């Protein structure tokens, strides 16, 4: 009888075993060498994944000026995106700590934050240029990395970055990152704990900051952002607004020129009335709309990009924008664009 019971128990235990404890499922297949080579692109500070190659600051500048400066600025000052140069002091290279980060007045940049150059190489290689990731060759990635390091005064103008000196190069903030905190494991203790006091806790609260009245409508009319039924009403913040409404946005694919411009990130370089990295749409309209071939000219410019018409910073060709979208945008430009239309 006890043998029968043991047998029943054994069957129950086997049934209850988690799948991972059983033999393999045998799903999936071995990857090909080509698949691994194409996907396994990560580079670690210890040299894991580093590719053989080299590139000079000079070559890097040529690539940067044509492929990167559009977004990051000629000197890495980056009007639109994270500042990639500056904030580094000569003594930081010796100390291994970007001392400026102690001060709230010093801008946080790639140069004074990053601890290893390998990470810069890895990121340019996997994700840049933003609109055409993984389009640079290995040597081009070395060259652009070298130029960004040069912009931060970490390497001299005559420098050549190679797969060997990439690993020994010392970044200004190499010792500025710490893992001494409680957020690395569930078992560790949080660094800040609240109080469990229930009654007569602390002094009378004082309001130290409140929503400025002039900013109440900056996210659009709040009444349009809450369900109109329920136990509580909503403030009609548009009634408090004394300035032109900007409005919070939510996604919409209505095919309008504005929507197409937003979807293709055109507005990161072109303003309506104001030149940003590229010319203002209003100025483009003024210059070209009397031209007989304005539509064809502008469509070609959007598709192929170019430089020199407005300044030295080139516009990359827009390859993902569809034919009918180009037409909509060009008609909108020629008709004289205004903000909000």
């Amino acid at each position, binding site marked *: 009888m006890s043998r029968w019971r043991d047998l029943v128990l054994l069957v129950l235990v086997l049934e209850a075993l988690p799948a991972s404890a059983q033999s393999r499922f045998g799903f999936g297949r071995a990857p090909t060498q080509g698949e691994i080579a194409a996907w396994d692109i990560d580079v670690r500070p210890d040299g894991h994944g580093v590719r053989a190659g080299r590139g000079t600051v000079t070559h890097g500048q040529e690539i940067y000026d044509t492929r990167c400066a559009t977004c990051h600025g000629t000197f890495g000052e980056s009007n639109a995106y994270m500042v990639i140069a500056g904030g580094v002091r000569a003594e930081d290279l010796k100390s291994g700590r*970007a001392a400026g980060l102690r001060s709230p007045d010093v801008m946080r940049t790639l140069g004074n934050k990053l601890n290893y150059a390998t990470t810069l190489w890895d990121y340019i290689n996997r994700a840049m240029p933003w609109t055409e990731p993984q389009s640079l060759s290995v040597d081009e990635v070395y060259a652009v990395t070298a130029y960004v390091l040069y912009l931060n005064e970490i390497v001299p103008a005559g420098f050549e970055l190679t797969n060997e000196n990439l690993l020994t190069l010392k970044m200004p903030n190499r010792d500025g990152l710490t893992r001494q905190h409680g957020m690395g494991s569930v078992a560790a203790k949080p660094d800040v704990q609240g109080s469990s006091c229930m009654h007569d806790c602390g002094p009378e609260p004082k309001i130290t900051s409140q929503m400025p009245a002039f900013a109440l409508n900056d996210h659009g009319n709040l009444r349009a952002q809450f369900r109109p039924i329920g136990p509580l009403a909503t403030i009609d913040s548009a009634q408090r607004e004394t300035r032109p409404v900007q409005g919070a946005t939510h996604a919409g694919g209505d095919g309008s020129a504005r929507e197409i411009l937003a979807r293709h990130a055109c507005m990161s370089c072109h303003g309506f009335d104001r030149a940003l990295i590229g010319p203002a749409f209003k100025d483009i309209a003024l210059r070209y709309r009397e031209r007989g071939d304005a539509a064809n000219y502008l469509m070609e410019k959007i598709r192929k990009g170019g430089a020199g018409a407005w300044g030295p910073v080139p516009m990359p060709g827009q390859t993902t924008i569809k034919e009918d979208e180009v037409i909509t945008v060009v008609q909108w430009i020629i008709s004289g664009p205004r903000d909000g239309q």
Partner: protein
Amino acid sequence: MGRLPLVRGRIVAAPENHLTTVQIDAARSARRAVLAGAAALMAAPVARAQAPADPEPVPPWTRGLGAPVATNGYGGPSPFEANVQRRQSPGLTRTGQSSVSFTPLQSLFGIVTPSGVHFERHHSGMPEVDPAQHKLLVHGLVERARMFSMNDLMRFPSVSRFHFIECGANSGMEWSNVAVPTVQYTHGMLACSEFTGVLLSTLLGEVGIDKQRAKYILAEGADGSALTRTIPLEFALDDVLVVYGQNGEMLRPENGYPLRLLVPGVQGISNVKWLRRIEVGDQPWNTREESLHYIDLMPDGTHRQYTWIQEVKSVITAPSGGQVLLDRGYYEITGLAWSGRGRIARVDVCTDGGRNWKAARLQQPVLTKCLTRFRADWRWDGAPALLQSRAVDERGSVQPTLAQLRAVRGTRSIHHNNGIKTWRVGADGEVSNVQVA
């Protein structure tokens, strides 16, 4: 229920069936036309200027035939719910492709975030991934690297679990002064779903990890940013999921269709979307998203790195910023609590800015690393009030005040702001975003 004395310009409730939404809009635009050019700073009462419409005891939808079944094959909210939208915070980012949209927490019930309003964070835009071509490579310090198709992955034993995802930068705009008006923008990089997929431990068992050397994994996305994050093996073998299902359907494209990583309790960035590769390694990768971004600046100029865990936190979603209490009397104070370290043990609420607290009711079930809905009863006496909630998790961690956080971390760390949130109720019933000390 005592009605407040009428104050000029104060919002008052309209009588039942007083005006339809369409009529309210018409009244509002009519008033705008009248007030155009005037310094119309006062809050005009809703619809009070209009004559009451005749009440219609039998509404039109009772006196006719409705639409047939399958009018909309995948359904959608009522057109009257159009205000409930993911929204961007103007000026926060320069492009929509590297940006964030916020969950409308003020309009949601319970703990589940409808998939259509789950907050978004893209780094190189939202790709359209063909599931028939999508694959997951698992390799590195393993006995046999494997390439899995979606068919392969969906054939493994599956699990469904409720978990929250919170961006590490949620409430980041609150580290300094008050700058945004509603809970959508203060706490809306937060969502909670039922996720379905295969345990990562199952896949790692399938490929056979090198138990002597393996310490971390790298997860990589298939989008243009090929986003990468390091995850400790301790997490990977515990409760990390490789997810394809969300709230009963496939993942939405915004949330990683067809495959994402789900690292319960860990900051949003680690829950890599459009997951295409997992590499097993012996040390962390120091990727861009863990050495240049998603690091937390301390007052001494150091940055904390690999701050994975989202600490215990809560927020009142009603009454919250932008709302108005129309009458004195009963209100339900309700909100959400969560912890990256486990279950919520209790939530206290107060109406006096932190002086006197009482325990809130927790909606069951209370799940680990999951949103918990809390509720408390309140009778508003018409006096100004400061509403707060304070969560405690099962490991005994107590949600700190913003002042306690700042005393240790300063105001520049961007991420991991789990401070107690304060909403001020004015004598006029308006609820606004404030900070107290």
